[in-house]
């Protein structure tokens, strides 16, 4: 991971001092709520339903064992002993006290962490593909480019008060694992025919209330121009994005209003002035940033045969991923054990995982947007020993890619924005699908749950998506099918929404249609939906509308 130099450290320390003073003024009654709000948000602090929520940045998802131990310490000292990994590769504490937040930020700064711009109408934490540096189809190490962008975006003076939040993702491999078409700006690394590295720039994607797949604004941006081009996009957005209605303020609405061609012309015109200016990246800088990353000291090993059968075999098949170095593997620690809210980790688990990361994976780990953890550099001959230790910690559920690896936001149990709860719905589905053989038979299936239109649970791109909606003060759930993250596709609503207790039942009916209709075991749920359309699914679900388990709903979604 990137190690701060003294200047990186100073900037974070000065930010903590600034926020400590602002918090003091607020608590002393000198800084009213409305004025304090944008300041605290840009330091990751929300005032939530029951208590403040602090969102800690985990830049592009990478953590050291030491940092994870600090998060465990914060969870115990300032929270109720646990944290929640979000779909933006961040960690959220749900119970800190406002007056403690400056101290928490100081603890974070002591391990080169911060909460800068994890909320507010500014450039947010930049996310990356979680297999950067180890994937076999890698083009560039996206972490290096993310760090360059992190530094450029941190405390950027011009873009602290954008019309709305601004999310960026960088994907460094051939396969898009960073959902680049679903961000305000997505950057997908490319190698041109002449060997030069650059990025395809995608703009205007996003989920939320108005889900839109992004569009390519520039096919190939040579890497030295990364910052100046992105700055041109941000400036056009800052000046012309709508500010009259927060629901129409994301850049995707500007892209829609202008059309991609007109926006491209506008950005290019702005870029002409910035291009080749002082923000043009240099090889020296890219090498400097790359050189500040720790790198695993790999040994010369051979790939080995691993057992296919039994519980270890099942875990290996689901949770272990190929590695570009012979004899090594990357693996996912599932945070989706039934009965545990998706993404939640206790302080004790954090400490234990930190120990394991040191013993098995060069002291580093990663957070994925699916709310799991990844050990990226484990020797294949030690996988079985690691699996035993993970199993003892409840972190070896063999469900990566399967239906029970549910992405879910904290929902109405915690979040003041939510219309409905998500965690109990996730748990009810996990309980219904607790038979591992059946789960494996169903195969790859992304099931995503959001408690409201803000879609923190990424329901739009779930093969099955579940969205909490409010109707006359009651919690209902709308179901979509056919979404996917890569290639980016948005799910379609199957019909009127359901009561909470009906949702697992609906999922079961959808699976029945799929199992009966798939053309082979290799055809995934989402592929079947694409091939046969959503109608057979609608018919089957709503034909059972009078079943005793379904309580008819009078209103239509």
């Amino acid at each position, binding site marked *: 991971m990137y190690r701060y*130099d*003294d*200047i990186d450290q*100073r*900037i974070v320390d*000065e*930010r903590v*001092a*600034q926020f400590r003073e*602002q918090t003091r003024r607020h608590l002393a009654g*000198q*800084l009213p709520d409305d*004025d304090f709000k*944008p*300041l605290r948000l840009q330091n990751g602090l929300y005032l939530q339903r029951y208590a403040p929520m602090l969102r800690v940045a985990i830049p592009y998802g990478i953590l050291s064992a030491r940092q994870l131990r600090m998060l465990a310490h914060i969870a115990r000292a300032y929270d109720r002993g646990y944290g929640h990994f979000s779909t933006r590769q961040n960690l959220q504490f749900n119970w800190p006290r406002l007056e403690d937040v400056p101290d928490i930020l100081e603890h974070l700064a002591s391990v080169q962490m911060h909460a800068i711009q994890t909320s507010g*109408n500014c450039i947010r934490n930049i996310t990356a593909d979680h297999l950067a540096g180890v994937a076999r189809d890698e083009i560039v190490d996206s972490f290096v480019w993310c760090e360059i962008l992190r*530094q*450029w975006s*941190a*405390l*950027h*003076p*011009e*873009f*602290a*008060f*954008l*019309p709305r939040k601004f999310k960026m993702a960088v994907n460094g491999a051939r396969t898009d694992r960073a959902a680049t078409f679903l961000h305000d700006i997505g950057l997908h690394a490319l190698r041109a025919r002449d060997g030069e590295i650059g990025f395809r720039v995608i703009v205007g994607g996003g989920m939320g209330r108005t889900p839109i797949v992004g569009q390519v604004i520039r096919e190939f941006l040579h890497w030295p121009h990364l*910052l100046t081009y992105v700055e041109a996009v941000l*400036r056009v957005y*800052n*000046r012309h994005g709508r*500010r009259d209605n927060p629901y129409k303020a994301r850049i995707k609405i500007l892209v829609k209003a202008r059309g991609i061609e007109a926006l491209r012309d506008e950005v290019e015109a702005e870029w002409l*002035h910035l291009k080749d*200016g*002082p*923000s043009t*990246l*240099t090889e020296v*800088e890219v090498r*400097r940033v790359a050189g500040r990353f720790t790198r695993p000291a790999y040994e010369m090993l051979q790939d080995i045969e691993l057992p296919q059968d039994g519980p270890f075999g099942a875990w290996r098949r689901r949770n272990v991923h190929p590695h570009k170095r012979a004899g090594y593997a990357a693996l996912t620690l599932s945070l989706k054990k039934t009965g545990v809210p998706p993404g939640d980790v206790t302080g004790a688990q954090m400490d234990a995982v930190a120990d394991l990361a040191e013993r098995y994976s060069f002291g580093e780990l990663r957070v994925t947007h699916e709310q799991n953890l990844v050990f990226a550099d484990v020797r294949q001959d030690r996988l079985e020993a690691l699996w035993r230790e993970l199993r003892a910690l409840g972190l070896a559920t063999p469900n990566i890619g399967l239906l029970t690896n549910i992405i879910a936001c904290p929902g109405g149990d915690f979040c003041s924005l939510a219309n409905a709860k998500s965690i109990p719905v996730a748990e009810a589905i996990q309980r219904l699908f607790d038979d591992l053989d059946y789960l494996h038979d169903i195969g790859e299936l992304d099931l995503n749950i959001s408690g409201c239109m803000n879609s923190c649970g990424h329901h739009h791109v779930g093969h099955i998506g579940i969205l909490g909606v409010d109707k006359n003060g009651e919690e209902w759930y709308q179901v979509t099918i056919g979404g996917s993250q890569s290639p980016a596709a948005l799910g379609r609503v199957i019909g009127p929404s359901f009561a909470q207790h009906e949702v697992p039942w609906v999922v079961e009916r959808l699976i029945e249609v799929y199992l009966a209709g798939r053309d082979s075991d290799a055809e995934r749920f989402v592929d079947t939906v694409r091939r046969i359309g959503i109608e057979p699914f609608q018919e089957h679900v709503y034909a059972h509308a009078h079943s005793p388990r379904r309580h008819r709903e009078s209103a239509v979604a």
Partner: protein
Amino acid sequence: MPTLIRRGAIESPPSPEPGAALRVEPHEDPAAVADRLGSAARVEVHFPKFTDGRGYSIARLLRERFGYRGELRAVGDVPRDQLHYLARCGFDAFLLRDGEDAKGALAALAGFSEAYQSSVDRPLPLFRRRGASSSA
């Protein structure tokens, strides 16, 4: 009483000045006022709310694209906590909104000793200025 922070000093009330200011609203295009910059006693960029960030881009354009060198004053909803970013975007005068603590505002201007980005006050980004200190 209105308080102006200018050139590192507090003017409360601001000292009287001859000449008319050119005022730019957030929706206005700096290019449209470019030919009037030379004759203005000063330029005022209006912030109807401090969370309306358009004025930051306007200031940079006035300074970096249209070469404006005179006084650039932030007016309207200008609280002390924004002065640092405003200064980096090219403002050198700040008409604080009512009730702001002027000394606190001066201190906020000096809150950060370094910044990563290219900005009006320091055109070279940090990566072009990093010296031997960063080789640790």
